[in-house]
């Protein structure tokens, strides 16, 4: 193979790579949005911006949208296992943690701490502006040497 043929082959491969990338990459809010909605299992909670429309305002949702994620702690464990809270960048997330004992709830990454006590749940209201997967932990469980994980906040790019 001559030098020119080699260069042509490399250039052709690069062009294929770039075109494939452009074709495969989902556009803003179309394919990606539907995919996310379809993937959301019934047990999961989707937090929506309270009353407002999303910045793009075009993503159709085919099912009711619970606004608040409720997590219940009994005897240091989560009823129904750790919750998954899904959000898209820009959403307002609302989480309420009911506990049957005094506790401190920590949302990693956003680094928010709220106290909970019987009858006085810990309430989190914030804008999801950091992407990633963040753990929600009970500090009482952690200090007792138990699994502190009570939920995961999943913030996906818009």
């Amino acid at each position: 193979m001559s030098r020119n043929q080699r260069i042509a082959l490399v250039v052709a491969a690069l062009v294929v790579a770039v075109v494939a990338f452009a074709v495969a990459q989902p556009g803003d809010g179309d394919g990606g949005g539907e995919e996310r909605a379809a993937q959301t299992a019934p047990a999961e909670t989707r937090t929506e911006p309270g009353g407002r429309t999303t910045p793009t305002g075009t993503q159709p949702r085919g099912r009711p949208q619970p606004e608040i994620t409720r997590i219940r702690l009994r005897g240091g464990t989560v009823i129904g296992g750790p919750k998954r809270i899904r959000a898209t960048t820009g959403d307002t997330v609302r989480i309420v943690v009911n506990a049957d004992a005094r506790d401190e709830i920590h949302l990693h990454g956003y680094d928010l701490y709220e106290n909970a006590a019987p009858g006085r749940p810990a309430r989190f209201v914030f804008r999801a502006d950091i992407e990633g997967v963040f753990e929600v932990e009970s500090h009482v469980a952690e200090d007792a040497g138990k699994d502190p994980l009570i939920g995961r906040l999943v913030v996906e790019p818009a």
Partner: protein
Amino acid sequence: MIPLAHGLVGRADLPIPEWLFGWAAAMVLVVSFVALAVLWPDPRLQREGWRPLPRGIGRLLASRPVEVACGAIGVLLLAVVVYSGLRGTQSSTANFAPTFIYVIFWVGLVPASVLLGDVFKAFNPWRAIGRAVGWVARGAARGELPAPLAYPRRLGRWPAVAGIFAFAAMELVASNGDRPENLAIATLVYSALTFVAMALYGVETWVERGEAFSVYFNLFARLSPIETRDGVVGLRKPLAGLPTVEPLPGTVPLLAVMIGSVTFDGAAEAPIWTGIAPDIARLFEDLGLSPQGALELTFLLGLIAAILIVYAFYRLGVVGARSVGGGFSVDRLAGAFVHTLVPIALAYVAAHYFTLLLFQGQAISFLASDPLGDGADLFGTADSQIDYGLIGANATWYWQVGFVVTGHVAALTLAHDRALAIYDDAGLAVRSQYWMLAVMVGFTSLALWLLSQANV
């Protein structure tokens, strides 16, 4: 489940989206076949072509005062790690030791070695102390010290295999592996073992063969265009340092531990592991182990399994390459191509720990000011915070996929060059490469799959 290590971080990456996974996997195949067609027909990387940095800069950078200063910094950091581990708060995120060891040292030194050469050799506290003790002892003895024992050739890099495995087990298996006190004690034990071995076999020999972290970072440093030779810092072709890796006994297992431990760290979050781990742990509990002991044993077995799978897969490719002819033994071929696994190992570390270094690495700013977690503010940075907005999910995905594909290309290039060098017949060289190519595609696909498996 009882929490294991990694209490250090409460953040994880989003899995790469399906379309990007598909695109990257396709690219790996395209790149591989194009590489077979266009790579050079004569070996090019087997000679390094090293040249010193101009105008005496190369000599200055490796001069005695610089060497002493770097060694002193290394020793100081070792002392800070041990002191803060023993005397500081036992909260792993508020103490200097865990973040320094697991993030700055273990992960941060990898890109530093690739970009700047073997920096750990300069800052290695054990080497600095060993050399200083040797210097003082020679002065006291007024002459030469008795010669160290000959390093057994069969030992090769096996001490480093043991060291890196122990470190991985501490990080990924031990449930209290991020407790500052435990880390300080482990550091002291490792330091003592290192000094004994240095006394037996000589400081430089042990640093080259047995001291686990020196061997580990040195492998990555061989990717670097910067190398110090005979007291002078110089430049060479990128990648050209790798073909000089001597395939000493234990080298293939070392690479298997390096790749396998990152694989296990990634897979531990994947459904494939989280689905079966509790069942295995329950089995051990039924046999009479405590819940924590059962879980640790389960994770230890998982780590060993991941390492064995990586090792077996490489051996399989080598056995295949041998079958095309050429008259080489399996061991000879396994050693001849082992250096091609270093860029793969780098891709695994870079893709998996990229955001850990980027985010948790920032914590060192406030931890340096308050190493014990007692409210001190030595440098005025104790109130700084981690900026999690530094990089978004999309950019993270592109970097991760970029690392994996780049590592794949580097590994293919090295394997191709080595095949041309060892086979007399160009046809045999190419046919042996189909097997190595399959190995590389396998490892790269595994890396991509792990990136798509994050726990969401």
